[in-house]
């Protein structure tokens, strides 16, 4: 999978797009990916997803893509259907099974890439659950900053200290914070709107044109 763990990498899409618009844009691209009848369209959306994921600072592992797509193709090929292309020993390799596997493999990889490129960590969820999520995420970021304080030789003690730092339980400790204030995200810029419009138009046109 893409390595999302390195949060310090620059998210270039974040300066262009509001996280909510980015999320909705991702849903439209995913719709095109899943519903497009031809594999060429799915391949194009998958490539776009790969570019977006890279722009958003995620390191795309092409070995992951190859293993995923390859495994899907192999497993589909094991259940032959359609025209026999050639025989591997006594086993028939069929057009229908290979094409079905290829399309499915592209879709699976595309789903991951588009999702990685369009789901921002800054995405705010609505309602009280959204508030709780904001608090959770704030603590998660604080815990991540303490990651270097985990000592393998005294792992329990060090984890206990980290937990006590962020969620104090000792008598006389300050009360646990329950509010998380994040400044509002900047709105989508003109180049951001252009990117969304152009890519969506291209994906939809390709899906309709290649039916």
């Amino acid at each position, binding site marked *: *999978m893409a390595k999302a763990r390195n949060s310090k990498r620059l998210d270039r899409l974040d300066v262009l797009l509001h996280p909510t618009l980015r999320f909705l844009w991702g849903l439209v691209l995913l719709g095109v990916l899943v519903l497009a009848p031809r594999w060429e369209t799915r391949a194009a959306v998958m490539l776009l997803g790969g570019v977006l994921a890279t722009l958003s600072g995620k390191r795309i592992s092409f070995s992951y893509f190859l293993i995923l797509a390859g495994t*899907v193709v192999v497993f589909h090929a094991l259940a032959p259907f359609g025209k026999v292309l050639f025989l591997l020993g006594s086993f028939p390799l069929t057009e229908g099974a290979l094409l079905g596997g290829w399309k499915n493999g592209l879709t699976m990889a595309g789903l991951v890439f588009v999702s990685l*490129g369009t789901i921002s960590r800054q995405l705010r969820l609505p309602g009280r659950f959204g508030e709780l999520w904001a608090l959770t*995420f704030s603590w998660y970021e604080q815990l991540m900053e303490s990651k270097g304080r985990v000592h393998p030789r005294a792992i329990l003690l060090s984890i206990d200290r980290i937990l006590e730092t962020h969620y104090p*339980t000792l008598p006389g400790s300050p009360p646990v914070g329950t509010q998380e204030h994040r400044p509002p995200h900047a709105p989508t810029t003109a180049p951001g709107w252009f990117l969304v419009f152009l890519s969506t138009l291209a994906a939809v046109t390709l899906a309709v044109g290649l039916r």
Partner: protein
Amino acid sequence: MPASSKKVAPARLPLVAFFGALSLFFATLEYLFPTPPWFRLGLANLPLLLALDFFTLPELLLLLLLKVVGQGIVNGTLASQAFLLSSSGSLASFVVMYAVFRLIPKGWVSLVGLSLAGSMASNAVQVGLSMVLIFGPASGIIAPWFLGLGTLSGLGIGWGAEILKRHSRWLRRVKLGQSS
């Protein structure tokens, strides 16, 4: 488990959120361990396992939701099949762990047993969904490997949770604070 209610207590919400953050933190630490690309250890389940003793059912469900949605947002997989597999596996694991925890008398099953039961449920559901949605029925041939590795990781996570439960002073103080 707090005997008082079957509701979400507002005073405990920050602790639920903190356990959610711990789940995400452990999910990130998971990347430190080398695993095949199609397999995850499930370290994020460790806080959920410990939380069985702390929260009411609605609070636990809220924690589960924070864990799965949070992982989807932090990892960016919220709109992919990885999210579907992960959330279905987490839900199955939780249902089985909670049922075992509530139905079997206390002291009969350790956290290792709970974790093993949850891990087997999670892996069985994920294998089933992979066969139906992604790889096709032929992928059943990797199921024994997947389930075998899942069993091992379930044992490991249960063992880690048991050690934390016995030796963590922070957990002990949190529990005392909950019961007082």
